[in-house]
């Protein structure tokens, strides 16, 4: 699926800003939209992340009430794969550096 991939586990070559930027952990954040049904968002979270009903519902409520929810955190390449899958379900997802790590 990826065309240009930076493996976060490799040491970046000198001057490789892209790889430096993509190192570390990234968060997958789902943004709220006024259209998708709550039950739909819960189902997508269960399907994509394997969350149980309670966790999926809690994440959905965060999206609904706070406008966003961090649904996953980890290496960039996998974060991108999750963002792509969420887009396939017509949810809007963004990636941001996980600065807690």
């Amino acid at each position, binding site marked *: 699926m990826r065309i240009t991939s930076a493996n976060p586990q490799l040491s970046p070559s000198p001057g490789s800003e892209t790889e430096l930027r993509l190192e570390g952990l990234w968060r997958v954040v789902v943004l709220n939209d006024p259209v998708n049904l709550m039950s739909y968002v819960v*189902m997508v979270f269960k399907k994509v992340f394997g969350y149980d009903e309670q966790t999926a519902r809690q994440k959905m409520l965060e999206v609904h009430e706070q406008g966003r929810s961090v649904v996953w955190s980890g290496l960039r390449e996998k974060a991108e794969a999750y963002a792509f899958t969420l887009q*396939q379900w017509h949810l*809007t997802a963004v990636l941001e550096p996980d600065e807690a790590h």
Partner: protein
Amino acid sequence: MKRIEVKLALPVVAPLLDVIKELADSLRKNLAAPLELKDLDPEFREAWTDELLSTQNEEVSTLLALFDDDFFGDGVVAFDENNAEIIVRACAAVRLRLREKYLKPLGDEALESGDLDLMTLDEPLRKAFMCYLFLATIQELIIQHLDESILGA
């Protein structure tokens, strides 16, 4: 295989199909949910967009195919584990496009609650909002009855 059949009122649903077909055309080259990832490599972004559009078009075609000649004969549509996930996603895509194209003037609060007096809306807006509710109903039916099929797929 679990399967649900729903009998729809043809006089109510038939006019909404024109709206869905029109939106299907506008979804051919536009993603229903915008790609917000700012720092993707341009080639990567293009590949993503192409793949997402291709999937989206297949989904919407499957939704439209529900309303074939048989449907106009008996008014019945059927959902099972083979089409549930595709249809529920197609409904999401069309509903997002409905908001973009017609429903923004109603405000997001009204769209989230669905609480609107249809009689106060002019004809194109009323038709678009009815279509929005119709597709939500299909989604709810599928999620309520076929959630496990989708999760197991």
